[in-house]
């Protein structure tokens, strides 16, 4: 048994670090740290995306043929870890992690050539049309209707929680093309332009005042048949592939540990906190949880690295990390005393025009980050749904 990296992997790590030192400019790091929400604004995210694309390291989840890096699972883990520790902006998963691999897997040659390159070059921004009002985590009850009309579909209905729809050029969207078969069978995977008369966007403002998600209404919106991925009725299969694909290895532990250590450093200079052993033990317990999660992820990674199917541990990473993320962000609010109560209404909180902080920049970020952080245990499968799944699939209850 050992939990170390091979010499080759360590060399790769040094290569990544050197790249980050050279290319990840301070403004981008500040942008990442000055973003309370889970998704970074395009003015930060896309610039970083271009830098990575120039280095050929952007599409590391894609097959080599489609422009991927061909990295091993361990290399992917190392790359994500080093980026996280260097405060790199999070890459938007919508094009790179979600629809990109889908097009690469199920798309026609023509679709691949039309869409993939433009995702990498950030000429096209994407959003995801899955959730619907009233449907919650229940995909089968999908109501958005797409009716064939010659070379196109006329789409009617509504999607909700659509991240960055207000920036997106395209949406990949699940719509019901056949109401007469059983629920899963009638769904198709459509790509549609966002900038068209039939599409209207209603912003949904978060508790902290951030505009991150939207409701999107389709009123005879058009989706071209040539932009359908896979066959009609294959939407469910493709959606499943996409979820599987999301479940490769993960690398959340190292960032959580880094954030906890950062709170520890901030605590050392926060008046009245130094001698508080209760605070110190609270932080230590969070760190033990995060360190355990890091090893849990390495156990999964070791399985992948040996070409084996990872064990049931994969199911708990999301559950543990979401809850831990919230506990860390709650601790941050508590750390700054009354300064932690400030909630600036202006956005963004990075750059020159951002509002002046009360106390410190870190104190200013605490409350909006905490409020946004409540989303972790709700979106992408709520904690309740995650536990239902683990109980059934892992514990056999």
């Amino acid at each position: 048994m050992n939990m170390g990296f091979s010499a080759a992997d360590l060399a790769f790590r040094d290569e990544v670090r050197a790249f980050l030192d050279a290319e990840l400019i301070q403004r981008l790091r500040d942008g990442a740290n000055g973003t309370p929400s889970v998704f970074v604004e395009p003015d930060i995210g896309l610039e970083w995306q271009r830098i990575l694309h120039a280095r050929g390291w952007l599409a590391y989840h894609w097959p080599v043929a489609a422009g991927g890096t061909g990295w091993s699972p361990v290399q992917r883990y190392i790359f994500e870890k080093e980026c996280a520790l260097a405060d790199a902006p999070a890459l938007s998963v919508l094009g790179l992690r979600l629809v990109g691999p889908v097009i690469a897997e199920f798309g026609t040659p023509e679709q691949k050539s039309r869409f993939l390159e433009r995702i990498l070059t950030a000429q096209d921004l994407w959003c995801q049309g899955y959730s619907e009002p009233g449907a919650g985590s229940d995909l089968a009850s999908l109501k958005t209707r797409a009716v064939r009309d010659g070379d196109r579909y006329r789409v009617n209905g509504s999607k909700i929680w659509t991240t960055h729809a207000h920036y997106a050029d395209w949406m990949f969207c699940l719509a019901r093309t056949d109401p007469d078969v059983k629920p899963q069978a009638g769904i198709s995977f459509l790509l549609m332009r966002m900038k068209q008369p039939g599409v209207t966007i209603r912003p949904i403002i978060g508790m902290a005042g951030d505009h991150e998600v939207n409701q999107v209404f389709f009123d005879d919106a058009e989706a071209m048949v040539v932009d359908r991925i896979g066959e009609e009725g294959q939407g469910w299969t493709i959606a499943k592939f996409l979820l599987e694909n999301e479940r490769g290895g993960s690398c959340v532990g190292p960032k959580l540990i880094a954030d906890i250590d950062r709170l520890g450093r901030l605590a050392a200079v926060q008046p009245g906190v130094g001698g508080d052993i209760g605070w110190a033990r609270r932080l230590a317990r969070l760190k033990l949880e995060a360190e355990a999660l890091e090893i849990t992820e390495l156990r999964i990674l070791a399985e992948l690295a040996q070409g084996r199917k990872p064990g049931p541990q994969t199911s708990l990473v999301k559950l543990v990390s979401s809850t831990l993320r919230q506990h860390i962000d709650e601790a941050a609010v508590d750390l700054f005393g009354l300064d932690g109560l400030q909630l600036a209404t202006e956005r963004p909180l990075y750059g020159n025009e951002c509002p002046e902080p009360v106390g410190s920049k870190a104190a200013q970020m605490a409350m909006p980050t905490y409020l946004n952080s409540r989303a972790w245990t709700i979106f992408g499968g709520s904690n309740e749904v995650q536990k239902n799944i683990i109980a059934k699939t892992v514990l056999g209850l």
Partner: protein
Amino acid sequence: MNFDLSEDQAMVKAAVERFVADIYGGDLAARRAGRATAAGFSPDAWARLADMGVLGVGTAHGGLSGGAAEVMVAMEALGRGLVAEPVLEAAIIPGFLLSAANSAALAGVLDGSRVVALAHAERAARHDLMHVETQAIASVGGVVIDGAKIAVLAGGTADSFIVSARGDDGIGLYLVSADAAELERRNYRLADGSVAAELVLRGVTGQRLNANLADVIPMARLAAAAEMLGLMGLLLDQTLAYLKTRQQFGQPLGAFQVIQHRMTDAYVLVEQARSQVLRAALAEPADFARAAAGAKAFVGESALTVAHTAVQMHGGMGITDELAIGHALKRIRVLALVFGDADSAIDDYRDAA
């Protein structure tokens, strides 16, 4: 042994509930409008509260007057109504102090014509309410104040401040005019959308008030606990209503056992919080400070738990700005932390025990 409202208490409750029904009427429009102003609340609504006598609750004077029990009744109803007006910050606290000091400034607080805010917290104090570095220095003209204050609640448009400062005889309270040249004010928003201020005082003339900081803290803590109790009731009821109607996987969310038990836990917290608030409001004078400290700590932690539950139970909608849920959570965050966080209130409770 009787927990029924007295006639006076029923009047207080009815007055506030009428105010909530008339001004707030069940949606967030009035709250948004109030928060959108520079002051963070509506002057008209404030005047209305003054007319109703609500701003005098807990003082020896003013329309509804009364004591701790009346403050509890009023603040719970205001919390339940998610009211933006700073009754705790700009009425209960200054009213208590100015009334104790027989200050002429009281009249303006009671009739709503003046906003007087307590400027006490300091950054270096963290949550230690007895840590005051601001100094009161005797000078020819009287006393001048030197120092800095943070998180001055309702400080955004206050025309006077009651400033705590350390003099030869320990911590004293001084009335200071907001437009004094030697006073620098910087406004900012708190999580609940209210406008707080940071102050820098460089030799500001202050008028000593014959009142003690230590006396107002228990009343402020009781009022904060009672407002949180009202917010807890709001969160519990709205969440239950949502869970009974919202369908998922072919049944109401409230039919899932895990959700039922989580809501039961929330219900228990609300009832226990009510008991702690009652304990403080009805305590013997000798026990009031201890009981109020305990109630503030207990209710603060319980309210935060209930708010987190309400957000989670509402799913995506819960984390938006569109429901009362998030606004209640943010107000609870503020109330739970001011006048001592849970641990420091617990320590006061232990020391007094």
